[in-house]
Structure formats: C-alpha cells, structure tokens
C-alpha cells in the first residue's frame, strides 16, 4: 500500500492538524491504518463486530489523548499500541483469555504438494518431478488486476492467524518485530505463519497462471 507520511516531523504535523480539528488529516490516517487495525484487533477479540468497535474506541482514545503523544515512538506505533491494549482488554472481557501464542500451531506438514517431488527410492529423492511452470512477466502476471483478485481471494481464505500475519507483513508492510508484538507471537511462530500463508497465496497464483496459460494458449 502507499506509505503513510513518516518521520517525527510528519507525525508532529499530523498531531497538530488533528488537534486543530482537521478532518482531512484524520481521514488520511483512517485510510492508511484502519484496515490493518481491524485485522490486529480481530486476533484478540471473538467477532468482527467486536473488532470494529475496538477500532472505533481506539480512534476516540487517540483523539482524546493527542496531548500525550510525545514523539518517542512513531505515531503509527503509538496508535497501534493503544489499539492492542484496547483489543486485549476487550478480549479478556469476552473471556477469550488464551493468547494466540499459547495455541499450538494447527498448521503442520509441507506447504508444497509432496507429490511434486521425487520419491525416496528415486535417484534424486526430494527433487522436483517437474519444475514449477514459469509465470508471465510481472506486467502480464502478478501486477495484473486478475492476479490481484486471486491474491485477495487467497488471503481471505487463509486461517485467521496466517491471514493476519500475511496481511500485516506483506500488504501493510509492518516489520516482523511489530507483528510479533501486536499479535503476541514468538519470532519463530510468526515466520511459520508467514511461510504457510505465503505458500498458499503462491499456490493460488500458480493455479491462476496455469489456467491463464491454458485459456490463452498460443502455439
């Protein structure tokens, strides 16, 4: 996504604009951050509706607490810290007190169909039977609109935690450390979820391009 303006000067300018009741400045922040905020909140509470309320409560807390923003962290970090606290408090109230990190990863096993690799008794055990088919050039391929739709569909179908990690890391561009903090994940667990999620999205694109190649087959 587009990067929000960053840096202390930009953050200070934004806070000043908000304090001056600049609605356009607020709308820009909402457009940049609100969907990520929902995804983070959703990991701590039990329903979509509850996560939406957390996002709403967070913005109100941010606006009311503007004079407490001191620029020691970025504005984004500050806003998301308020979000996580709000979401966790609400999650506890909903008795969903088991943090995500306490749950064993339900995901296990290979991320690429084992059938695509040679068997143990083969001369090259574990080697590709056939290499992955090449993808079209980026302009015709992953950057095209149809591919983007395939990516959206694939991400939406991921298990919750994979969905959150892939969305925050790859769509919103948060760092691994930030995601671990916001979702209560260990670094290793975060990587496992990212790995499984990305592999599933890649597999979807592979099917998408395979289908494209068949439909658009030229000699």
């Amino acid at each position, binding site marked *: 996504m587009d990067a929000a303006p960053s840096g202390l000067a930009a953050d200070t300018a934004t806070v000043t604009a908000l*304090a001056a009741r600049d609605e356009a400045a607020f709308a820009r922040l909402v457009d940049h951050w609100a969907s990520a905020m929902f995804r983070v909140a959703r990991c701590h509470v039990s329903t979509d509706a509850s996560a939406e309320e957390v996002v709403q409560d967070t913005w109100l807390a941010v*606006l*009311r607490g*503007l004079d407490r923003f001191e620029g020691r962290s970025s504005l984004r970090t500050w806003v998301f810290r308020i979000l996580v606290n709000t979401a966790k408090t609400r999650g506890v109230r909903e008795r969903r007190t088991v943090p995500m990190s306490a749950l064993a990863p339900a995901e296990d096993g290979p991320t690429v169909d084992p059938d695509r690799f040679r068997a143990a008794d083969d001369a*090259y055990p574990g*080697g*590709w039977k056939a290499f992955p088919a090449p*993808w079209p050039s980026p302009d015709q391929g992953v950057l095209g609109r149809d591919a983007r739709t395939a990516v959206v569909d694939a991400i939406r179908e991921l298990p919750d935690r994979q969905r959150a990690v892939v969305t925050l890391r790859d769509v919103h561009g948060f760092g691994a450390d930030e995601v671990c903090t916001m979702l209560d994940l260990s670094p290793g667990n975060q990587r496992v979820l990212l790995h499984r999620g990305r592999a599933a999205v890649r597999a979807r694109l592979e099917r998408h391009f395979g289908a494209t190649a068949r439909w658009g087959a030229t000699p």
Partner: protein
Amino acid sequence: MTDGLTCAELVELVTDYLEDALDPATRQRFVEHLALCRGCEDYLDQVRATITAAGRVTPADLDPVPRDRLLGVFRDWAGDGPKV
C-alpha cells in the same frame, strides 16, 4: 552431495531465508542448492513475486473500512469541548 538440501526441503526454508533467519551453515546449503537448481530458483522468484503482488493489494479489499462511522467519531470529538 550427502549434506545437500533436497528441493522438497528447500521450499520449506524459503521464508526463513528471506527473513534472514537461517543459521550460516543452512544458509550456505540453501544458496548452493539454489545456484544449481532452476526449479528452486524459479520457486523462490515466485514467492518474491507473490510478496510483491500482496504489496499491491488495496487493504480495503481485504478489510473494508467503515470510513463514515470513523469520521463520525472524529466529528463527535471535534465538536466536543476545547481543543487539546
């Protein structure tokens, strides 16, 4: 190549490689395999392309933002009391 990675093993290490989380010895085996294997090189490129594609997704397509309601929160606050 008794200590070489198989393709099936390599594809499961792709994220750790991209996240720079492999120990030096495994990273070396990863890079050596990659240099010799067109299939795994393409697989890694496709994972990178997948990340690029995800970066082009419009966030609101994944999680719609109740913009009007949030602007309502702002207006209620803005019309309420002295400036901070």
